[in-house]
């Protein structure tokens, strides 16, 4: 599948230098774009295809209010700069006040902008999310953002390909978040470096689009350039009817093309990994790298038992930062905060799953729990379904859309020493706030942690 998309986008093949590939969709946000637009201006260059460029504000926005004047002065400058740039260069912008504003990787798919067979880039490493539709989607730096704005192409040579097959049936309450955390635990955070990963197998085919996006989203945490899943009827029915989806005769043509994309039988990959779905349990990270992960029924590992000296040092550093002792049961870890949201798990299905757990219950005393929908549309849909009231009745805060506490660029941050059950994607030191401690898990696991005040095995929790 990668090969087919690559070949279909080759503007120029490498002649011992670099290939040029065409970019169908360029997503832009306020943090990684200002320097790119400024450089265009300096060099008197235009945006080559404004119609293939879509911008939103997500990293800096407040999730407490839609009032931009409440944002800090520097955040505001960055957001104002994006507005001015989009106006000057003719780029469509979903700004902070727009009903459809949201996390760039949530709004692309929900607007129907993301389609199979496309090449999609964004100055954001979680662009891999869009690969769930059978597109080639990856994060780029600001210099490359400038390059795509100016030329609608990217200089790139083909990465290696990896196939990860997950066959079988997932256990009760095991989600796609657990699949990807399990994979990262197996191959390591650099296991995918230099590769594009294709996820396949019956357990993947059984997943909804939202769940597929969660897996592809965290491909970057396995080090991979991109993650992708073959498009099928689940993909097509998700796209059909959305704002920017092909319409009329174009729809038929598009679907016919999309059906040619999946990897052919016997397609060759540089690496193949096989995983049994039954082996995967609900997963929780214990350290400061997503690869430092174990199942919820496990314990915090003992660094002394690790053979590799570098891994041992890393684990020691992580345990010191996380203030955890080797041998502690994961389910004995108490938490202070809960964050449900992000481009990994801020979609409607994630909120439904969490709400199912929360309904009729209360957040544990002393725990602050926030739910941040991935987009304005997700928020609206959730409110239509009454999910907001389920959360607020239980003591959760119900917020506006944005990246929020996934990286704490706005005022949603952990304080020093606070411990968070989070549905986001990175447990790096300081990621959710300086000195904050992050445990990554699925939305249902985060929801039950909020109710119990500690990490809890969702499988043993009395469910409705």
């Amino acid at each position, binding site marked *: 599948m990668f090969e087919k998309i690559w070949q279909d986008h080759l503007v120029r093949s490498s002649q011992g230098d670099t290939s040029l590939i*065409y970019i169908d969709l360029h997503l832009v946000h306020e943090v990684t774009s200002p320097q790119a637009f400024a450089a265009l201006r300096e060099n008197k260059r235009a945006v080559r295809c404004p119609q293939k460029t879509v911008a939103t504000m997500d990293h800096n926005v407040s999730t407490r209010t839609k009032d931009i004047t409440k944002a800090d002065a520097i955040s505001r400058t*960055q957001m104002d700069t994006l507005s001015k740039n989009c106006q000057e260069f003719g780029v469509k912008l979903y700004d902070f006040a727009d009903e459809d504003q949201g996390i760039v990787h949530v709004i692309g798919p929900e607007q129907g902008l993301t389609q199979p067979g496309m090449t999609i880039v964004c100055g954001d490493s979680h662009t891999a999310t869009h690969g769930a539709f059978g597109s080639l989607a990856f994060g780029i730096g600001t*210099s490359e953002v400038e390059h795509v704005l100016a030329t609608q192409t990217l200089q790139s040579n083909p990465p290696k390909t990896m196939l990860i097959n997950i066959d079988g049936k997932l256990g009760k309450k095991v989600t796609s978040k657990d699949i990807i955390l399990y994979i990262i635990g197996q191959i390591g955070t650099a296991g995918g*470096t230099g590769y594009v990963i294709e996820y396949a197998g019956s357990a993947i085919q059984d997943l909804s689009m939202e769940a597929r996006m969660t897996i592809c989203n965290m491909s*970057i945490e396995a*080090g991979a350039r991109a993650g992708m899943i073959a498009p099928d009827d689940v993909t097509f029915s998700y796209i059909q009817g959305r704002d920017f989806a092909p319409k009329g005769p174009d729809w038929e043509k598009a679907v016919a093309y999309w059906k040619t994309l999946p990897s052919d039988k016997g397609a060759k990959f540089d690496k193949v990994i096989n995983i049994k779905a039954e082996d995967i349990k609900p997963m929780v990270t214990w350290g400061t790298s997503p690869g430092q992960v174990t199942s919820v029924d496990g314990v915090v590992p003992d660094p002394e038992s690790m053979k590799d000296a570098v891994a041992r040092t890393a684990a020691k550093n992580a345990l010191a930062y996380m203030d955890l002792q080797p041998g502690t049961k994961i389910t004995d870890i108490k938490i202070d905060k809960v964050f449900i949201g992000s481009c990994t798990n801020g979609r409607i299905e994630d909120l439904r799953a969490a709400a199912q757990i929360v309904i009729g219950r209360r957040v544990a005393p002393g725990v602050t729990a926030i739910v941040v929908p991935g987009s304005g549309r997700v928020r609206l849909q959730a409110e239509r379904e009454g999910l907001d009231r389920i959360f607020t009745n239980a003591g959760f805060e119900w917020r506006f859309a944005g990246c929020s506490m996934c990286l704490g660029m706005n005022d949603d941050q952990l304080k020093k020493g606070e411990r968070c059950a989070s549905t986001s994607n*990175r447990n790096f*030191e*300081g990621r959710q706030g300086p000195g904050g401690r992050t445990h990554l898990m699925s939305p249902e696991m985060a929801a039950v942690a909020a109710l119990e005040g500690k990490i809890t095995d969702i499988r043993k929790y009395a469910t409705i």
Partner: protein
Amino acid sequence: MQPFKTHTGVAAPLNRVNVDTDAIIPKQFLKKIERTGFGKHLFHEWRYSDYEGTAENPDFILNQPTYRKATVLLARDNFGCGSSREHAPWALGDFGFRLIIAPSFADIFYNNCMKNGILLARLKSKEIDEIFDFVGKNKGAVISADLPAQTVTAGRKVYKFQIDAFNKECLLKGLDGIGWTLQFEDKITAYENKIKAEHPWLNR
């Protein structure tokens, strides 16, 4: 972009795996709209013992007198992982680093450094262990890189590294990538015309 041909400088050893770009430059410093001035926030949370960055952490390697002016960084596996922020190479470059040596780098970070005139030299893990050993025993020792020859020299040892021909050429000449691509503008236009006919639904 500043061209890179050769470089010799004091090498600071950063003995940690998976150093992510959040650690290289934390999010609170990503709000500037310029490319300059990030150096003082490099490795902020390790380098300073307070949030404001007024009190240095004396244990952190770059705060030790020997390494304050280091221009070569010796690192471990998966350096630069995580966020795609180009602020990471901007901060490293602004601090003064021109050369980073490690067993592996994250893909996006690698590309970002290439666009900013910072050479990343990938060596084998064993060789990296050797160099850590060398700088451990010879504090403040310099390490050199020769891009045309694709070598890194530490003491008497010379190590060979791989780099693809295009990145090498761009670094040597300090080439503007956009200028290079625009010489193929006719090919881009031809591609756009072809795709308009074949995949009409992509013409938003």
